[in-house]
C-alpha cells in the first residue's frame, strides 16, 4: 500500500509574511530561533549547497560556496532560501544525485535539487510507509540510501525498518524486531547488511536481501560500556567493514562485529548523538558543545568547541573538494562550519 499525498506541502516563505504586526512576528521568530534545533543536514550532490532541517519543519538551504568564498559577507551565511517542508521536526535528510529527501513525522518527502537551487520549493513526491498504530504517527529518525539496490531505508517510531524502492516509490520490505523505536541506521555495503540502533538498547544487524535479523547486540548488557544512569538507548551508530562504533546511553564504544566484543570504550562522558568514521579517526558529538576527535586506540585526540549545546548532526561535504567542510548542527539556530576540522571557522544561521 502506498499513500501518495499530492503537492500538499504548504509553502510558507518568510519573505511573504503578512506585514501587519511585524513586531509580533519579529518576536515570534526570535523566540523560534531561540528554541530552534537543527536535527539534520544534507549536502547537495554538487557540493555547493547545504540543506538543514529544524524542529519547526523548515528546510533552509545555505550556499557553502558563497559562505566559503573570500568575499563572504554576513548575508552569505544566511539561508539562500528557507521553506516549510514538514509539519513536525525534520529528523533526517539524505541526498540522492538528483533529489533531497527529508523525513519527519511519518513521511518522506523529496525535493529536486535543480529546483531548490532556482529557489523553487515544490515537493517532488511524498511517501508514507504503512503504520499499524493510528493513534500516533510514528516519526522517521533515520534515512539511509542503499545505492546498490537503488532503495531507501527508513526507520523510526514504529520500531521497524522500511525499504522503499526509489524507482517505483513502493515499500518493498520491512524489517521488524526492535522492541522500541529506532534511532539510527548504518549500512554495510559489502555484506548487504544494515545495522540499526534503538531505544531498546540493542544494535541489530539485518540481511537486506533475505530480510531477516542476522544478529542482535544488547549493548547495555556489556559492563564495559553500560551506563544505567543514562539509560540503555543507542542513539548513534557507524560502521566500517568489521568495525562498528555506537553510543548513546551506554558509553561510546568501538565494537568488532565478527567477534561481537567491545574493543575500545572511548573516554567521552556525555551521551553521544552522532558518530562517524573519518579517515583513521572517529568523529563524535552529543550532549556537549564539542565535536570530539577520537582515535581508534581510545584516546581523545581533540575536543573542538562549537556553539550548539547538544549536537544532533555532523556532516562532511565529500562531494566538492574545494568546499570540503565539516558542519555541526544541534540545539541552536546556528550551524557551525569547520573548514579545517580543528577549529570552528564560522556559523551559518537560520533567520
Amino acid at each position, binding site marked *: 500500500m502506498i499513500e501518495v499525498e499530492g503537492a500538499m506541502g504548504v509553502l510558507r516563505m518568510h519573505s511573504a509574511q503578512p506585514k501587519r504586526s511585524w*513586531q*509580533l512576528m519579529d*518576536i*515570534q521568530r*526570535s*523566540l*523560534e*530561533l*531561540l*528554541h530552534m*534545533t537543527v*536535527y539534520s543536514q544534507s549536502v547537495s550532490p554538487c557540493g555547493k549547497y547545504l540543506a538543514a532541517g529544524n*524542529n519547526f519543519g523548515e528546510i533552509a538551504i545555505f550556499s557553502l560556496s558563497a559562505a566559503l568564498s573570500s568575499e563572504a559577507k554576513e548575508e552569505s551565511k544566511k539561508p539562500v532560501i528557507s521553506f516549510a517542508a514538514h509539519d*513536525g*521536526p525534520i*529528523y533526517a535528510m539524505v541526498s540522492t544525485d538528483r533529489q533531497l529527501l527529508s523525513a519527519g513525522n511519518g513521511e518522506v518527502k523529496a525535493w529536486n535539487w535543480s529546483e531548490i537551487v532556482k529557489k523553487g520549493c515544490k515537493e517532488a513526491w511524498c511517501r508514507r510507509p504503512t503504520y499499524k498504530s493510528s*493513534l*500516533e504517527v510514528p*516519526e522517521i*529518525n533515520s534515512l539511509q540510501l542503499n545505492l546498490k539496490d537503488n532503495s531507501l531505508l527508513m526507520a523510526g*517510531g514504529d520500531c521497524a525498518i522500511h525499504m522503499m524502492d526509489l524507482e517505483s516509490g513502493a515499500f518493498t520490505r520491512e524489517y521488524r524486531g526492535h522492541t522500541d*523505536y529506532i*534511532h*539510527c541506521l548504518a549500512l554495510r555495503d559489502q555484506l548487504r547488511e544494515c545495522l540499526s540502533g534503538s*531505544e531498546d538498547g540493542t544494535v541489530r544487524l539485518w540481511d537486506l536481501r533475505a530480510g531477516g535479523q542476522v544478529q542482535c547486540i544488547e549493548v547495555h548488557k556489556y559492563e564495559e560500556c553500560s*551506563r*544505567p*544512569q543514562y*539509560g540503555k*538507548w543507542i*542513539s548513534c551508530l557507524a560502521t566500517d567493514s568489521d568495525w562498528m562504533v555506537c553510543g548513546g546511553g551506554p558509553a561510546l564504544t568501538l565494537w568488532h562485529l565478527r567477534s561481537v566484543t567491545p574493543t575500545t570504550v572511548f573516554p567521552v*562522558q*556525555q551521551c553521544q*548523538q552522532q558518530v562517524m568514521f573519518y579517515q583513521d579517526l572517529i568523529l563524535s558529538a552529543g*550532549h556537549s*558543545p564539542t565535536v570530539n576527535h577520537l582515535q581508534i586506540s581510545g584516546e581523545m585526540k581533540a575536543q573542538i568547541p562549537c556553539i550548539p*549545546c*547538544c549536537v*544532533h548532526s555532523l556532516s562532511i561535504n565529500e562531494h566538492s573538494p574545494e568546499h570540503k567542510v565539516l558542519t555541526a548542527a544541534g*540545539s541552536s539556530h546556528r550551524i557551525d562550519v569547520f573548514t579545517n576540522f580543528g577549529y570552528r571557522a564560522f556559523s551559518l544561521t537560520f533567520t
Partner: protein
Amino acid sequence: MSSDSSKKRKPKVIRTDGGPQEGKRSRTDVDQDAKYYSEEAEVDLRDPNKDYELYKQTCQDLQKLMAEIQELKSKGNKDCAAEIEERRIQSCVHFMTLKKLNRLAHIRLKKGRDQTHEAKQKVDAYHLQLQNLLYEVMHLQKEITKCLEFKSKHEEIELVSVEEFYKEAPAEISRMEITRGDPHQQTLSRLDWELEQRKRLAEKYKECLANKEKILKEIEVKKEYLSNLQPRLNSIMQASLPVQEYLAMPFDQVHKQYETARHLPPPLYVLFVQASAYGQACDKKLAVAIEGNVEEAKALCKPPEDSQDDESDSDAEEEQTTKRRRPTLGVQLDDKRKEMLKRHPLSVTIDLKCKDGSVLLLTFYYLMNLNVMTVKAKVTAAAEMTMPISAGDLLSPDSLLSCLYPGDHGKRTPNPANQFQFDKVGILTLNDYVMELGHPYVWVQKLGGLHFPKDQPQQPVIADSSLSASHMERTMKLLKMRLESRLALHKQFASLEHGILPVSSECQHLFPAKIVSRLVKWIALTYEDYLELSYTKDVVEAGLAEDTHLYYMALIERGTGKVEETYYSKPPFPQMVAQPVIVGDEAPSEQALMCSRLFSPSQFSKSKLQAAVVLNPGYSFVPPVFSLCLNWKGEKTNSNDDNIRSMESEVNVYYKELCGPKPGYQLLTNQLQRLCVVLDVYLETETHDNSVEGPKEFPQEKMCLRLVRGPSRMKPFKFNYPQGFFSHR
C-alpha cells in the same frame, strides 16, 4: 612911547570931538543936530578901503615924521627943538588918526561878526526845516509800502474755480456783467458766494449734529435694554444647568473648556482638540479636561515668551544676583536647569475608562523650553485591590506606559535639539528628571502633533494636527489594552503570590484535570538579578531582555517532602553547578543521601523548577519569555537538557495556544499552569534507573502514547484535549 600914548589918551575924547568933527562935519551936516555923535554910525559911512588907504598913508607919514625927528635929534641942535615940537604935534595927529582907525576896525569886526552870526542862525533854521521835510517824506514812503504789502485774508480762503463759480452761483451774486471785467469785483462776488455756501454747510452741520445726538440717545436706550437682558439670560443659564446635567449635555462646561483651551500651548491644544474629537466620535467615556492655572498661562501669553534660553538665563541670573548676594555656581546651574525644564502652567488630562470601570488618568504636560510633551499616568482601579508585592512595577507610572510602541521607553528626549540645550546647563540625560516631569514618549509627541526628524536636529518643529489625528485612535486603543492587561496582571499576581494559579473555565481544556506540581513562589526580580542567572544567557543574547522589561521568578515544586517555608534564590545544589551531568555510577545514591540530609526526611528530593520570566511591557501583545532551571538530580537547564529546552519552547513558542479568550490577558497564568503540567510530564516520564533501589519517585499518572521520541528523546509535552493524553509535537 607908551607914556606918550597914555598921556595922549586923556584928550582923546576931545580930539575926537575936534578932529573928526572937522572931517565929518563936512559929510553929516544934516543929522549932526538930531543925533549925538556915534562912531558906530560913522563906520557905515566910511569906506573900509579908503580907511585902509588912510591907514597906510598915516603909517607912512608917521614913519616919515619919525625918521625926520630921528634926523633932527641926531643933529642935536637947539633950533631944531621947535621943529621937533612941530613934528611931534603932527605925529600926535597921526596917532589920533590911527586910534580912530583902530576903533573903526574894531567896530567893523564886531559888526561883521554880528552879521555872520545872524546869517548862520538863518541857515540853521532852514536846515532844520529841511530835515523835517525829509523825515516826513520817508514816513510817507513807508506808509505807502506798508499799504502795498498788505495781505488780505481772502487770499487764504480756497475758492471754487471761476468757471464753477459762474456756473453755480445765482446771478444776483455773480453779476456777470460787472465782474467779468473787474477782477476785484469778481473776487468779491466769489467771496460772497463762498460765504453763502459756508452758511448753508454750517446749517447742514448743525442738522447732522442734532441727528447724531438723537441716534446716540437711541443707542443708549438700546444698550440699557441689552444690559438689562444679560442678568436675565444668566439666570436662565443658571437655571438650565441642572437640566443640562440631567440630560447629560454639558454644553456649559464644554464651553468653558474651549475658552481655557485658547491659552494652551499649540501641542497641548492639538492634543486637546484631537482627543476631544476622538472622544466624541469613538469613545464616549473618554474625558478630556484642562487643568492648571489659567491666569498664569494668560500672563505667559501676553509678552511673547522669548524662547531663547540665553536671555531667560541672563534674566534668571540677574534675579539671582539681586536676591542673593553671591549664589554659588551650583545653585546658578540648578536654577538654569529648572528654567529649562519649566512646564507650561496648563496641562491636559485624559481619563480613559475601561469596561470594568477602572480609569487610566493621563496628564500631559508641555515643556516650553524643550518643546517636548511629557505624560504622567495614574491608575484608579474599579474595585479595591490588594497590593501584591511582586506587582510593584506593574501599575507604577514609570513602567505602565513603557514601550507602548516598540522601543519607546520615554527615557530620552525625542527632540534631538534638546541635547544641545542640555549640554549648556549640564544635564546629562532627561532620564534623571523623568520622575518629576513625566515621560516624553514618542507617541505623546505624536499625539501633540510634534514630529521630530532624526536627521535634522535644528529644524523648528511645529504642531501638526493631522499627525495627532492619525495616531489618536491606535494610541488610545493601545493605552486601553495596556491598562486592561496590566490590571489583569495585577489581579493575577495577587493570587500568584499565594500560590494559586487562576485558570478560567474557558482555558480548562488546555490542561489535564490533575496537576500535581504547584506554584509556590512568585517574586519580582531586578534586571541585574535576571542577568546574573546562568540560564537566561540565551534570552539576553537574543535581545529579548531589556532593562525596560519586568522580571519575575516563579518557583514550581513537586515532591514528596513537605513544602518548606523558606526558599533560597540560589540553586539548592551548589555542588552540582560545577559538574552538572557527569555523574559516576555511585553518584545517584550519594546525591540522594545528600539531598535527604539537606532537605527532607524523605528519600527523595523535591524537584524545584525555577522559571525566570521576562515580561515585555507590551504584554499580552508580546508574550512573556520563560527561562527554566530544574533542580532535580542536578541542575538542569536548556544548555544541558534538551527536554528543558523543549519545555521552554512549549510556553515561549507555542504561547498562542495558551492565550485563552481574547485579548489574551490570561496568557501568563496559562503559561505558568502549562509549566506545571510539563514539569509533571517531565518528572513522571523520566526513565527509571533500575540500578537504584526503591520505587519510582514520581509514578506516571499522565497518559502518554510514548515516553520518548526522536533523536533528542523528547518527552511528550503536548496535551491533547478532549482525549486527555500527552503526545509529541
